């Protein structure tokens, strides 16, 4: 039994099968990377874990507890945090208030929540922005705030959805450091990403999917040279080594 067990999960939208029988186990304390071309079903899988919509079939088990049909807020309460592909700041609150909202998951006391929030902001190196309105932040900081907001709720597993999208190289490096710091704190990270440098640089194990189906699994090195992965991203001709 892995920390997070995804068993034969299928999710359809009308005629389109977005997630096609995915099975994978995430081990505690690792950074697990999920890649795949656009539209391959990565974010859909995340949304199933959180139960923004449930899988059509299959089950998801976290720490031995089935969470497949639990309401989203219960899934969070059990210890799964989440960031979003299109970042979702609580726009008219300050950064500190945003993170406090995350902290209130574990406490009802305003002072304690403030302390937890400040701690999380410090960890994410965002404390200098604490009184800024969330909507005025640049994109990199918005993403960082979203991570801090999740961390304030003491998650045991965090789902990071395209954290590096839209970041410049320097910001990507900082983001990689942050994710490693999170893992070192003992929090398992399930990362979905497009930016190869980011995900190859931090993942312990990886999986590649296309059209909702798994096409490769292994270490970053193995994935990078896997013919099916190359085919999915660059096309069959390239995979066969034909010259351009």
């Amino acid at each position, binding site marked *: 039994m892995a920390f997070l067990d995804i068993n034969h999960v299928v999710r359809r939208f009308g005629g389109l099968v977005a997630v096609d029988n995915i099975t994978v186990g995430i081990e505690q304390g690792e950074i697990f990377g999920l890649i795949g071309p656009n539209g391959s079903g990565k974010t859909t899988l995340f949304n199933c874990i959180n139960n*923004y919509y449930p899988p059509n079939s299959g089950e998801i088990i976290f720490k031995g507890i089935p969470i497949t049909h639990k309401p989203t807020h219960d899934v969070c309460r059990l210890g799964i945090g989440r960031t979003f592909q299109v970042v979702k700041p609580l726009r008219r609150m300050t950064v500190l208030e945003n993170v406090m909202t995350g902290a*209130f*998951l574990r406490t009802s006391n*305003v002072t304690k929540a403030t302390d937890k929030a400040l701690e999380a902001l410090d960890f994410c190196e965002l404390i200098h922005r604490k009184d800024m309105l969330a909507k005025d932040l640049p994109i990199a900081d918005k993403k960082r705030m979203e991570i801090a907001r999740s961390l304030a709720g003491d998650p045991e597993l965090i789902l990071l959805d395209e954290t590096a999208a839209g970041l410049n190289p320097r910001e990507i490096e900082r983001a990689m450091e942050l994710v490693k710091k999170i893992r070192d704190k003992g929090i398992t990270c399930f990362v979905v990403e497009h930016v190869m440098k980011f995900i190859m640089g931090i993942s312990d194990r990886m999986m590649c999917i296309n059209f909702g189906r798994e096409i490769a699994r292994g270490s970053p090195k193995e994935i990078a040279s896997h013919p099916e992965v190359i085919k999915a991203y660059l096309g069959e001709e390239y995979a066969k080594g034909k010259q351009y």
Partner: protein
Amino acid sequence: MAKKNRFVPLILGGILVVAIPPFLGGYFQHVLILIMMWIIMATAWNLLGGYCGQVSFGHAVFFGLGAYGGGLLRLHWGLSPWWGMIVGPLLAVVIGIPIGLVTFRLRGAYFALAMLALGEAFRIVFTNWVPVTAGAVGIITSRTWGAEKLPYYYITLAIAALSIYVVYRLVHSKFGYYFVAIREDQDAAEGLGIPTTRYKLYALIPSAFFTGLAGAVYMNYFAYIEPHTVFNLSAVSIMMILAVMLGGAGTLWGPAFGAAIYTILSEALRAAIGPISYLVFPIIACLIIMFLPDGIIGDWEKIKRAFSRQKPVYVGGE
């Protein structure tokens, strides 16, 4: 030092509203009572609508239930309508909870309209269910203190102050953060572990309670209620929203401010230009929505800039 300054206007204002009214004439006391009633309703609506983002177009339901709580007691059992001050708001809450459980599944404008439809449905039911509610004829009671207005004023003032205080405490607690989170992004809120339906109910309960309480006060003060007035869409449900918008939704004093301005304007206009005043309000509402959508307090910066010669400074960011 700053903390001390913060309380001074509050204390001054408090002294004014308590000490001055006995010296005013009956008509002014009447207007003050109306202001206080609208402050209660606007503040109550603002908790659910402004802070929690659940815009209800049908809060007249709670007002009407609050009024009929006492009214029905009087009608069927001859009890004093003052019992309505307890029964009315409780009735509003007890019926409000299942209403919320059903309508909170809807988002945004659909929720607003479901509440609107509900308000109309209650109005129709109370008009037609004559054996229980006396229908369109309405219920008449007697005023406890006859023509004396002052006692009603102090009661309404106390309730208004209480309503603002309750909202203040809620907003500065975990509830407040959760309400605003739901307003800003319900999906993100769920992802942060907030049981959104439950917290929407937590906002609805005080909102329904105080609106119902205002209804109960109405019943006692005006001594006559009928469905068309207390369950009224434009005069009650919509006006509550406009008062809040005028002052500023999602702020603590905005609704009170808006309520006061609305009532004073309404009375002044009615005295000055008669029935045309009913036209003025919707037009003012349109202007506010188009130019000052966050209300006088919410858009204060905008107003200041309009009157000064400064160029607006644009903050860097997205």
